[in-house]
């Protein structure tokens, strides 16, 4: 089993004719993801890597039965693309695009809620259920089928840690990059709940970072609701206050959102927090051998 995506996922790529959209459509298809359609207004009729292109998501859904969308369109138009997918009946949207204005996300949120659409991202690397579906810009080769759930706010740090997991023979059920923006779709808690309910997942790794309190909420959720072991890591222990560390969401404001607070919250919830990425597989092994 897995969460959110699997062999039944039928993917439509929004912005398929752009540089990134084109490149990663090929990569995803090569991985084995069922990429059924692309969308690029005005390019209907084109084939990209054998994938048919439509003017609108509605047309793509009608023709191909797509149920999941990935968004590569530029930041200024990404919110509209997300809403278009939602209105066309897509139930899961993965927004890769970086740099979406926060107000756009605030307008998108209630719209998706009304339609019952889930969103991952924006500004995220996507997600993968190894050997079934890769939806995003993740390098497929470092992932391995297994039974660890993985959630992260980062991109390359995800690869770093997943690589360590795979090298240590911890395969993954599903790995989700939830993105580095302050207002995003699914948060840690939403995914922890799904992993808790996924029979195949036996433990979860959570990679947090400074800014916000999603990690604190995750810790609370783990303490209250989870039976499966969780290992955490927090990036940004050395980050100064008031400076945005690359991600729009990675900022310590007025002394809140610090790594120390997040680590304390996880410790209080009984979740071991790795001091450095190398320690993550070690802690995981300890917990699973208990």
């Amino acid at each position: 089993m897995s969460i959110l995506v699997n062999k039944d996922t039928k993917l439509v790529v929004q912005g398929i004719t752009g540089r990134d959209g084109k490149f990663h459509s090929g990569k995803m298809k090569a991985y084995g993801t069922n990429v059924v359609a692309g969308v690029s207004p005005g390019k209907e009729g084109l084939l990209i890597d054998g994938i048919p292109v439509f003017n609108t998501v509605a047309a793509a859904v009608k023709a191909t039965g797509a149920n999941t969308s990935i968004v590569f369109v530029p930041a200024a138009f990404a919110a509209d693309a997300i809403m278009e997918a939602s209105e066309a009946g897509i139930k899961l949207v993965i927004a890769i695009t970086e740099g979406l204005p926060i107000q756009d996300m605030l307008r998108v949120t209630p719209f998706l809620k009304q339609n019952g659409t889930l969103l991952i991202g924006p500004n995220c690397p996507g997600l993968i259920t190894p050997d079934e579906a890769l939806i995003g810009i993740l390098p497929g080769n470092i992932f391995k089928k297994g039974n660890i759930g993985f959630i992260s706010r980062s991109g390359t740090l995800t690869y770093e840690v997943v690589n360590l997991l795979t090298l240590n023979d911890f395969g993954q059920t599903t790995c989700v990059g939830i993105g580095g923006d302050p207002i995003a779709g699914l948060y840690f808690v939403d995914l922890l709940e799904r992993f808790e309910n996924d029979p195949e997942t036996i433990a979860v790794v959570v990679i947090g970072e400074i800014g916000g309190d999603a990690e604190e909420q995750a810790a609370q959720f783990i303490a209250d609701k989870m039976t499966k072991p969780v290992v955490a890591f927090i990036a940004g222990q050395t980050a100064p206050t008031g400076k945005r560390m690359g991600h729009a969401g990675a900022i310590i404001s007025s002394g809140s959102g610090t790594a120390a607070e997040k680590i304390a919250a996880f410790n209080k919830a009984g979740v071991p927090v790795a001091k450095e990425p190398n320690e993550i597989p070690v802690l995981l092994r300890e917990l699973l051998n208990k």
Partner: protein
Amino acid sequence: MKIHEYQARQLFRKYGIPVPEDVLCYTVSEVEKATRELNRMVVVKAQVLVGGRGKAGGVKLARNVDDAVSAAKQILGMDIKGCKVEKVLVSDAVEITKEYYVGLINDRNTKSVTLMVSSEGGVEIEEVAKDNPEKIIKFHINSLTGLLDFQARDIAFQLFGDITQAKQAASIFTKLYKLYVETDATIAEINPLVLTPDNKVLAIDGKMNFDDNALFRQPEILAMREPDEDELVEIDASSKGLSYIKLDGNIGCMVNGAGLAMATMDMIKLYGGEPANFLDIGGSSNPQKVIDAMNILLNDKKVTAVMINIFGGITRCDDVAKGLIKAMEVITTNIPIVVRLSGTNAAEGLELLKQTNLPTVSSMSEAAKKAIELSRQ
């Protein structure tokens, strides 16, 4: 992006939020003239982009022109948390019956703009949140309907019993929300909002921050940017596709990805070193980016070693190595540079780098240790 108090007041005026009369001054003689013209008791306020100017002596009440001149002499040129005061705002010192707090922020959990008001104004809201959390009223605004008049009035009635006061406050909340949304703000604070003896409700100190991601559609806000030296470097880096933040240490870091960059800084610290910066070069093997990044790092005179930490994902490590080789051809430095390559095609990349004489490793911790070691030589 941050703006000064005087700029926030300009925006408040544009949106019809009442603020006291004021004049921006760069010199003592301008302050003298402004005080004479206002012909009232004034406050001379340092215009700096850092908090805590009050405690640092950057805000002074002046009963007359002589007072104002002496205040201006003390404040202009003063250093507040590393910022030199280059201008002051001379503002009508209105009489105050009571102070309140009004703030708008983006709330991550409810995914909404949240209005926070408090009867405890004039102090930092974080202190109120810690000591008297029950004194903060929070209201989550539905982005589809906006802040409705009755909602603003309901909240105003929780601070003001009197209807004429409550109506003024409600109107300020509504206008501040409009300003906030239309300018893509991330913080809009009025602290204090004051009630005067003649029953007027006024905004005294205004603080606004804006969403960097939305500046492309906010030319008027962007024109208000007054970056300091460090920020100029950050903005310059950003224009080159790099995300750079200067820190105080001596080990320069160049990393692909923000999370990994933070983890790299943390690891340096964990192993006893001090990171000199945060630097995310993004997901590209473009040699120009590596050259630009290296130039920024080496401009920081404190840097005694550089750690390059690349995890190849979609970006192949051999491509990154080729970029690095090209970059090293145009950069001359005797500062040691440790390169870590891992992930896709790492072996090929490390092989290519042999020609550069750069120390290469394949794990992050090894790279951090090596960089620290080299930085001490």
